[in-house]
C-alpha cells in the first residue's frame, strides 16, 4: 500500500560521510499561538556525546523533543540527523533515520507483553514486509526469530528477561522506565532522547540509572540527549549542558560553566532583586 513515505535514506550510512555531527539542530523555532515555546534553538551533537537539556518547568524542553521526533513541525530552522534533513518527515521515518525517545510520563503499550513492547520497537529494523509475515514465508520466520533474540538480549541487558511475558502495565515503576529505554534502543537509534528518566525514582535508583545511562551510551554507541530535573544526575553524567528558559537558550557549556552562569541561577532561583524584594 504505497503511501508516499518521505525519502528513506539509511541515515547511519550517510552520517559517516558528514563531518563530526550526528545531530545538527540550527535555529529551530516553534510557537503555539502567541506563545513562543522554542526560539532559535541550536545544538550540535557528535557521536557518543552525552548532552543535558535543562530548564525550569515550561521552558520548552519536551517541545524540543517533540520537534526533533517529528510530532511537531518547526516553524523555522533545520534539523539534520546523520546528514539527512528531517524537518517535515513523519515520526516513523525519523525513527528509521535513527532517532528514538522515552517519555516523561511513561508511555508503554500497556496491554502488550514486555517482550512485545520491545519487538514493536524492532519492527523498523526488520527486513520482511508485513504481508510476507502473514504468509509466514521462511524469510519472515527467520527474521521474526532474530527479532525475538534481539529483544530478549535487550531485556537481559536491562534485567527484565524473566518478566518478558508479563503485561507491561503490571511492571513496577522503575522497571517500566527501563523497559521504555529498552524499547527505544530496539529501534537501533543513533540518537537517544531521554525525557526525565529519573522522575519518581529514589536516590538509590538514581545512582543505578546514572550507571545505566553510561553503559547504554557505551554499549549501544548512541548519542544521548537527556532532559532531567535532577541537577545532581545531570551535572554528574553530562559532558555538556544546554539551559532553556521560556523557550530561549540562556546558557550552554560544561556543567561547571553552566552552574556558574548568573543567568542560569536567575532562571532557577529568581533574580537577585526579586529575592530581596
Amino acid at each position, binding site marked *: *500500500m504505497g*503511501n508516499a*513515505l518521505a525519502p528513506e535514506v539509511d541515515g547511519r550510512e550517510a552520517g559517516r560521510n558528514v563531518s563530526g555531527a550526528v545531530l545538527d539542530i540550527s535555529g529551530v523555532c516553534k510557537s503555539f499561538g502567541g506563545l513562543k515555546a522554542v526560539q532559535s534553538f541550536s545544538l550540535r551533537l557528535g557521536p557518543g556525546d552525552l548532552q543535558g537539556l535543562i530548564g525550569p518547568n515550561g521552558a520548552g524542553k519536551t517541545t524540543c523533543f517533540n520537534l526533533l*521526533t517529528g*510530532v511537531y513541525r518547526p516553524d523555522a530552522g533545520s534539523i539534520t540527523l546523520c546528514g539527512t534533513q528531517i524537518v517535515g518527515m*513523519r*515520526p*516513523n521515518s525519523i*525513527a*528509521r533515520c535513527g532517532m*528514538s*525517545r522515552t*517519555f516523561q510520563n511513561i*508511555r508503554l*503499550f*500497556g*496491554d*502488550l507483553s514486555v517482550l*512485545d513492547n520491545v*519487538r*514493536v*520497537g524492532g*519492527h*523498523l529494523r*526488520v527486513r*520482511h514486509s*508485513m504481508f510476507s*509475515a*502473514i504468509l509466514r514465508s521462511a524469510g*519472515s520466520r527467520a527474521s*521474526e526469530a532474530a*527479532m525475538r533474540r534481539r529483544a530478549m538480549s535487550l531485556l537481559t541487558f536491562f534485567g527484565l528477561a524473566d518478566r518478558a511475558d508479563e503485561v507491561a502495565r503490571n511492571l513496577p515503576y522503575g522497571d517500566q522506565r527501563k523497559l521504555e529505554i529498552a*524499547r*527505544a534502543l*530496539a*529501534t537501533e537509534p543513533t540518537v537517544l532522547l531521554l525525557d526525565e528518566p529519573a522522575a519518581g525514582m529514589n536516590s538509590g535508583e538514581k545512582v543505578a540509572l546514572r550507571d545505566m545511562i553510561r553503559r547504554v551510551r557505551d554499549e549501544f554507541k548512541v548519542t544521548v540527549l537527556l532532559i532531567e530535573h535532577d541537577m545532581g544526575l545531570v551535572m554528574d553524567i553530562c559532558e555538556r549542558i544546554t539551559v532553556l528558559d521560556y523557550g530561549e537558550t540562556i546558557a550552554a557549556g560544561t556543567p561547571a560553566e553552566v552552574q556558574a552562569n548568573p543567568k542560569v541561577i536567575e532562571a532557577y532561583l529568581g533574580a537577585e532583586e526579586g529575592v530581596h524584594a
Partner: protein
Amino acid sequence: MDQLLQTIKDGISMGSLYALIALGYTMVYGILKFINFAHSDVVVLGAWLSLVMADTTTRALGGAGAAGAPWWLGGAVLVTAMVACGLIGFTIERLAYKPLRGSPRLNVLITAIGVSLFLQNTGQLRAVFGTNPRSIPPLIHDATLLTVGQVNFKLLDLIGFGTAVALMIGLDYLVFHTKLGRAMRAVSHNRVTASLMGIPVDRVISFTFVTGAMLAAAGGFLWALKYETIKQPADSSWVLLGLKAFVAAVVGGIGNVRGAMLGGMAIGLLENFGSAYLSSSMKDVYVFALLIVVLLVRPGGILGKAVVEKV
C-alpha cells in the same frame, strides 16, 4: 430434544456470521476509536458481488444450477469478493477517513454515515445492483451429511460454519502472532507512541480496514449462500444485520477481537433460543435487550476492560 439441537445449530450458524461481521466493527474501533457505520454496506457489497459473479460464471460455464457449477467455483467467488471488498475498504479509508485523521471523532462518525448512504444509493442504481431482490444461483450442490433425530446437518451448514471459523482463526493468528498484528495492537494502544517507535501508522490503519472489509465480504458471501434471495442494497434488513453485528461487538467488548467472536456467538444463540422457546416475533428484542443488560451490568463488554475514571 430435536428442537434444542436445531436451535443450537441455527444459533451457532447465525452467530458465526454475526461474529465475522462484528470483527470489522471492533478492529476499526480498536484502532481509530470510531464506529464505521459503512461496514454493514460492505457486507451488502460482498453479498451482491458474490451474486453477480456467481450469476455470470455459472451462465458462462453453460448451465445454471448446482450441477453445472464446478466444486471450486464457490471458493473462487468468495476469494474474489473478499479481494474486491478489501480494495473498496482501502479506498473508503483513503478517500473518506484519512483526510479526517486529526479532526474530532464526531466528524468521522458523520462521514461514516455519509459513506454508508453513498454505498446504499450507488448500489440501488440500475447499472449497479438495482432495487429488486435477486437470487444467487446455487454454487454448491447441497447434501445432507448427518441426521440426528429430525435435525439435518447439511453440507452448506458445514461449509458456512467452517469458513467463518477458519477466517476467525486466521484473524486471531494475524492479530496475536504476527508482526502486523503486533503493530495493530501497538497503534490501537497509542497511535503517537507507535509512530515514534517507527510503526508506519497509516499503513497499519489501511491494513486494518482491508482486513475488516475482507471479513465483511466473507460475511456477505455466507449470508447469500444461506438465504439465497438477496434483498436490494438499501433494504432495512441489512441495516438490522449490521446493527446486530455491532451489538455483538459491544457485548463482547468493543475493540477486543476475541470479544467480537464471543459476542457474535452469544447473540446468534440468544436470538434463536428466544425465537424457538419464547416468541419468534420478538427476535430482535432479545438482541437489544441483551445490549441494554450488558451496558448496565458490564459496560465494557464481556471481555472488555472497565474504564476507570480517575478523579
